[in-house]
């Protein structure tokens, strides 16, 4: 069922597409994090701005990825911008909410203690609030990274130049369900997602050594 000859002949291509997959996902999460960080700090300081920011990110999150990619092709063409903009947009809702929740979770006594020690607002944010928010921020990064790795496969619909491992799934399908090629895209992309998940679980344990309890929070 599996054409081993094809696999052996395409190891270079698989390595290239894996690297592309990691690159596209990492770029999306990095830009998404930078934007979310700023938005979350603004929202944390000006509370009235949080509902509109959160609602707008929520609406964007609801729009199916294929629709966003398709819409951008008409505007930004077959460029890397078309692939990255939706990836970035989808991370915003997860990251902004987790960063804000992390900052909100800092107990009032801690803030008072920081104020009492003479911290300025900026010092309090960087030395007290953000360090205490790190566990929730890492949890957000974990979710954003795993979902972005999944979405990178769909960038293959923009053009053959993108897609990471998803390229093999689409190309294999277009060759009349060429199973070996489709699986060469499907299984490594799953491994990549699970690998990233595991990496962040480790990071989460590292930043919260006191929390060994296994908890999953429901979505509202």
């Amino acid at each position, binding site marked *: *069922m599996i054409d081993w000859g094809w696999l052996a002949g395409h190891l270079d291509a698989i390595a290239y597409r894996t690297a592309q997959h990691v690159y596209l996902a990492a770029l999306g999460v990095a830009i998404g994090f930078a934007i979310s960080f700023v938005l979350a700090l603004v929202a944390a300081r000006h509370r009235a701005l949080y509902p509109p920011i*959160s*609602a707008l990110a*929520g*609406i964007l999150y*609801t*729009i*199916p990825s*294929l*629709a*966003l990619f*398709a*819409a951008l*092709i*008409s*505007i930004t063409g077959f460029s890397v911008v078309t692939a990255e903009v939706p990836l970035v947009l989808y991370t915003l*809702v*997860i990251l902004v*909410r*987790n960063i804000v*929740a*992390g900052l909100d979770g800092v107990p009032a006594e801690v803030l008072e203690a920081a104020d009492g020690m003479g911290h300025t607002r900026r010092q309090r944010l960087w030395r007290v609030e953000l360090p205490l928010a790190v566990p*929730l921020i890492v*949890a*957000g990064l*974990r*979710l954003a990274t*795993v*979902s972005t*790795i*999944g*979405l*990178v*496969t*769909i960038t293959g*619909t923009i053009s053959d130049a993108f897609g990471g491992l*998803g390229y093999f*799934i*689409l190309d294999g*399908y277009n060759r009349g*369900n060429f*199973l070996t090629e489709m*699986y060469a*895209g*499907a*299984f490594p*992309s*799953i491994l990549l*997602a699970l690998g990233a*998940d595991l990496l*962040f*679980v480790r990071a*989460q344990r590292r930043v919260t050594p006191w929390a060994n309890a*296994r*908890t*999953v*929070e*429901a*979505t*509202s």
Partner: protein
Amino acid sequence: MNLVTATAAWLTNPAHWAGQFGIPNRLLEHVLIASISLAIALLLALPAGLAIGHTGRGAAVAASVANLGRSLPSLAVIAIAIPITVLIDPVLGGTVLPTLVAMVVLAVPPILVNAYTGIAEVDRDLVEAGRGMGMREREILARIELPVALPVVLGGIRSAAVQIVATATLGAIFGGGGLGRFLVDGIAQNDDGQVFGGVLLVAALAIATEVAVGLLQRLARSPGLRRGGRGPALGIAPPPPVLGM
């Protein structure tokens, strides 16, 4: 502005509103396949989630299953399903069925997680009061835990429904129907009007799904709990922060 006129022209062309390949029929296909997969996912995930929430047994296993399901790229699930579904039905197995499998796989985690955390978080005093009144376990679940946890349970169904509507568009890549057809065909034919018309339709359906289940969620809040705290916000409410595990 060319884009706007092209989209308006495509959307207002009466030929696009009639027949097998028209917008109403594509919408129907989309809603139909989404409803079927949501029904299957509910059958699989809801009883399990309620049982785990009530008994507290199997929570770790369910969390792992849910986490695994959340991590899987939807395109990869479709690709893996194809050779299996082709064996079941040579025609549908290459188009509609693999997408259906992916939609179910992706819809199970939110339904499962919210069902069991919703039930598990119900005030234990309420449960004990029911037990003291001589309620059987089944009655406690049906008459105390489920009504109290219903908004949380519906929250999971809401995430699942939105996810399903999005994944259903991917079916068009694999020759399936639904509104995704306009996206895939529009890109292939370099027809901006069709692409943007499709984008608007798909986005509208996704947002309508989110709002509709959100409304249901608001109505489901038990009158006894309605005093004091406000219900879940109407309209778009993205998922709360996830702590992970």
